[in-house]
Each structure stands twice: as C-alpha cells, then as structure tokens.
C-alpha cells in the first residue's frame, strides 16, 4: 500500500504550491488512472510516489517505508516508466542480462510474451529502435521485472494505433492481485477500458477519487436527443450523435460504459 500523508510540495524557485495538505491512499490489485489538466501535478505526484521528489511537509510511504529514502528493497518493488526515459546503446539481451539481477522477481517468460504481443523480436538493439519501439521494449522490461508497483507516465504517447491495443492487452495480462499500476495520461480513450479506479487531480487537490464500479453505480453515460434531456442530466456536450450526457443513474437504469473524457470535463467544469 502507498500512503500519501498530508503532503505539501513546491518546486524551488516557484511561488505556488503543487500540493498543499494532500493525502491519498493507494491499494494493490488496482489499475489507477491519474488524470488532470496540464500543470496539475500528475508527473510530480508520480515522482513523489517513487521517491524522486521529497515533499516539503508530510510523507509518502510505500509499505511503511518513506519513498524518498530510496532504499534498494523498496526500489526493487517500484518501476517508473517515465514519459521520457533513458536506455543505453546496447542490445536488449545485454540490457536484460545486466539489469535483471536487480529485480529478484524478474521473469524471462513475461518479457518474451510482452515482446511478442508488441511484435518485437528478442534480438533487437536498443540504439536502433524508433521512439515507439523503444517505449514498447522498455514497457516489456518494466512488466517483466514484476515489481509490485508500476507507474506509467503517458505510456501511450508515441505508440501507433495497433500498439495502443497491444498495450492494453499486455497490462491486462500481467495484472496480478499484489500489483498496483498507476497510469497518468491525457489519452483517456487509450486506457479507459483498462482502469478500475479514477483519480482526477486539480490544483493541489483531488477532484475525484472513485472506483469505476462506484462511478458506474452513480452515473450513466449516454447520447440523448434534446427532447430526452431531463433533470437527471448532470452534464452534457453536443456531439454529432446528439448530446453526450452524464446523468444520475436511477433504479432500473442499465449500467453503461464510462466515458472518461466526459466525466473529466464534468468534474473539472463543475468543481
């Protein structure tokens, strides 16, 4: 479990606080979607969770250990796939053989399966790949480490259309009961079928912290004609198919697929 306890954080040289008295509890066996407008602190939160930044006040603990201590036992259990990452100019095989000793639960089988899903060969050279291929190779390695906590910052950026569904497949296949995945993204359509908990960040605080199940129980997401608009409608956006609507779910209403973009707009515009 990761506990964020009443943290405040600001970057040096900046006046405004990114987080102020912010608390959060994250649990295993969930895929969190971390959403927010630009500059609301999504990447900063991932850095704080990984121990790459130190809160000015409060603490971030991973299984009871302060993450900013960066202890090897903790780092063996956390993998951060940053939006921009550094890979050495070596073959994948060499990269794996040099780095796998640091991850006790590393699985060659998972690596091979992820590479196959991403349509990558095991004989690739990391210095000769395109940005998207490098990202897929890196994510395959990240999943193969089998760390308990996997944080991904804009994982689908730079991936082509088939790779986005491949990404969803590899994440879903490698999700285990003791694992927690946090995906920070603006590309909500790429991941909305994958997530089971939504976090929407606003300036310094959380606008939404709810499971997909809770959201589905509370709201319906549908298209309605102007004549169908009633008091249950909480938010609507005109589209070519009619009004995209979030409405209060009432007894007897069928469960609908969550429209994450609509939910995000509703929450950010009605705060």
């Amino acid at each position, binding site marked *: 479990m990761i506990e964020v306890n009443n943290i405040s954080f600001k*970057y*040096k*040289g900046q006046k405004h606080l990114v987080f102020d008295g912010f608390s959060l509890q994250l649990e295993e066996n969930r895929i969190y979607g971390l959403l927010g407008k630009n500059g609301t602190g999504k990447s900063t939160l991932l*850095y704080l969770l*990984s*121990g*790459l*930044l*130190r809160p000015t006040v409060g603490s971030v603990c991973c299984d009871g250990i302060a993450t900013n201590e*960066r*202890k*090897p*036992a903790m*780092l*063996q259990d*956390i*993998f*951060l796939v*940053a939006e*921009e*990452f*550094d890979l*050495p*100019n*070596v073959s994948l095989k*060499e*990269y794996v053989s*040099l*780095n796998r*000793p*640091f*991850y006790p639960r590393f699985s060659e089988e998972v690596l091979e399966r992820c590479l196959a899903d991403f349509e990558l060969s095991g004989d690739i050279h990391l210095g000769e790949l395109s940005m998207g291929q490098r990202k897929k190779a890196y994510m395959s390695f990240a999943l193969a480490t089998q760390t308990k906590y996997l944080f991904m910052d804009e994982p689908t950026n730079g991936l082509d259309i088939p790779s986005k569904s491949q990404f969803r497949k590899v994440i879903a296949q490698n999700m285990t009961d003791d694992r927690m995945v946090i995906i920070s993204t603006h590309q909500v359509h790429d991941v909305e079928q994958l997530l089971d908990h939504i976090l929407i960040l606003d300036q310094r605080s959380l606008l939404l912290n709810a499971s997909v199940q809770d959201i589905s129980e509370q709201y319906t997401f549908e298209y309605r004609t102007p004549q169908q608009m009633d008091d249950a409608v909480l938010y609507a956006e005109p589209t070519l198919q009619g009004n995209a609507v979030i409405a209060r779910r009432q007894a007897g209403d069928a469960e609908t697929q969550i429209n994450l973009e609509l939910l995000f707009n509703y929450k950010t515009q009605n705060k």
Partner: protein
Amino acid sequence: MNNFDLHRFSQALKCYFMTSRRTWLRYFGIFTLVMFMADLFFTRIQGHNFADMVEWWGLEEAIYLYKDYVGSTAVFGLVFFFIAMLFGASFLFSHMKETRQRTTYLMWPVSNLEKYLVPLVHNILLLGVGTLVAYHLADALRVLVDWTTGRVVIWGSPMFWDIVSRPFDDSAPWQLTAFVIGSYLWFHSLYILGGSLFRRQQFLLTSIAIVIGFFLFVWTTHTLAEVSGVNNRFEFMALHDGVWHVHWSYYIILTAEYGLTALHYWLSYKIFCRMQVINNKWLNV
C-alpha cells in the same frame, strides 16, 4: 537491507561499465590521440631537428638533448593525468544531467552509497588507468614513428615512472610523501564536491570557485597578519643542505588537509543523497 552490499555493488559496477563502454572507448581514443600529438610536438616541432643536432654536436650529444625532449612528453603525460583525474572527479554525476537520465539512475534498485561509489570508481579507473594506458600507447606510437624515420629509439615511459616515484623514493621523508598524496587527494575531493554541487559546467565552476576561495584565503590571512602584527610567512617544510626540516605546524596542516578531504567526500555524498529528479537549474540542491 544494508546500505552497502558487495555483490550488488559489483553487479552495479559491471552494469555501469558495460553500458558506458562506448563513452570510455571514445575517451581512451581521444586521450591517446592527444598524447601522441603532444609527443610529436615535443620531439619534432619544438626545439631543434634531430638530424641537425647530430650534424652540429655529434650523435652522443644529440641523444642527450633528445632525451630532454622525450622527458617533456613524460611531464606532459603526468600533467595530463592529473588534469584528467580532476576532470573525471568534476564530471562524477554528468550522467544525470537530464531529467530522464536522473529518473533512470535514481530508480535503480541499489543503495545511495552504491550509486555514489559506482561513478566514483568508474571515473577514477577510467580516467586513471585509461590515461596511463593512453600515455604508454602514445609513447609506443611515437617510438615507432622515430624508429621508422631512422631516429634513435628513446622510451618516455621509464622517465614517466621515474617522475612519479620521486616522492616515494628512499631519499624522501614520509612527511613529503604524505603531503604530496594529501594535496592531490584534497584537490580531487574539491572537484568531487564541485561535481556534486554544480549541475552544469562543473569543471569550470569548480576551478573558478577554487581560485576565488584561494584569493579570499590569502587576502584574509594577509589582512589579519597586518592588523595583528603576526608574521604569516613561515616554512612548514623545507630542504636545507640536503636535509628535510619539518616544522611542528606541518602536522597541523597535514591533519587539516586530510580532515578537509574527508569532509569534502562526505559532503559530496550527502549532496547526492538529497538529489531529486528536478533540482535547481545550476545547483544540485
């Protein structure tokens, strides 16, 4: 889990060396080329032409003078070695300049101490051993050029080691050896500290800081001496009539030198432990 695990450290060191091998091979090539060019400069461009010297003063005298030229290459090699070591010290964390590099390195599942020691050992070995090997290789190339062009074959390598061993030979007191080693380590530790503190232009900024610090120290002691009327000029160690005389103040200076060296290394490690993925633009704080 311990802050230092020898097995994990050796794995980390191996990983670091193997993934940076293109860099150190490139450095090794550059060092060899620079020293070879310097060797050619000292033996062929500066001073007299060897054939002219033979013609003017005879072979024996020409060889004697040519040995001096080759000796200059050894001095250059030694100066290059010391500067390269300081350069390497100031570039201790140059592999963490970008945010993406920093993220990868800081998330590596090894302890802070191991993460600190890996680039330290890497840079000392790479620049120490690399520079020495490059010097000898450049010397061998220079000898090959001399031999193929019909010059006398005089190796610079024994002269290099002769200069290096002088503070350690039997005629030198242990105080001199300890002071020479201590002074070098003190400089090295200053560049290590500068390399940890400054995020950009580490070598330049550290050198400037040392020069400013030196001038401030001299100015302060000079002013204090003038105000108090105390003589601030004394010899803590001097060679008179072939005998080394060591003043008691030498031991205070030596203790301060080693103490400050240890303090610099420790401060550098502490700065590293506090490094974050996004720091000040110029300083790692």
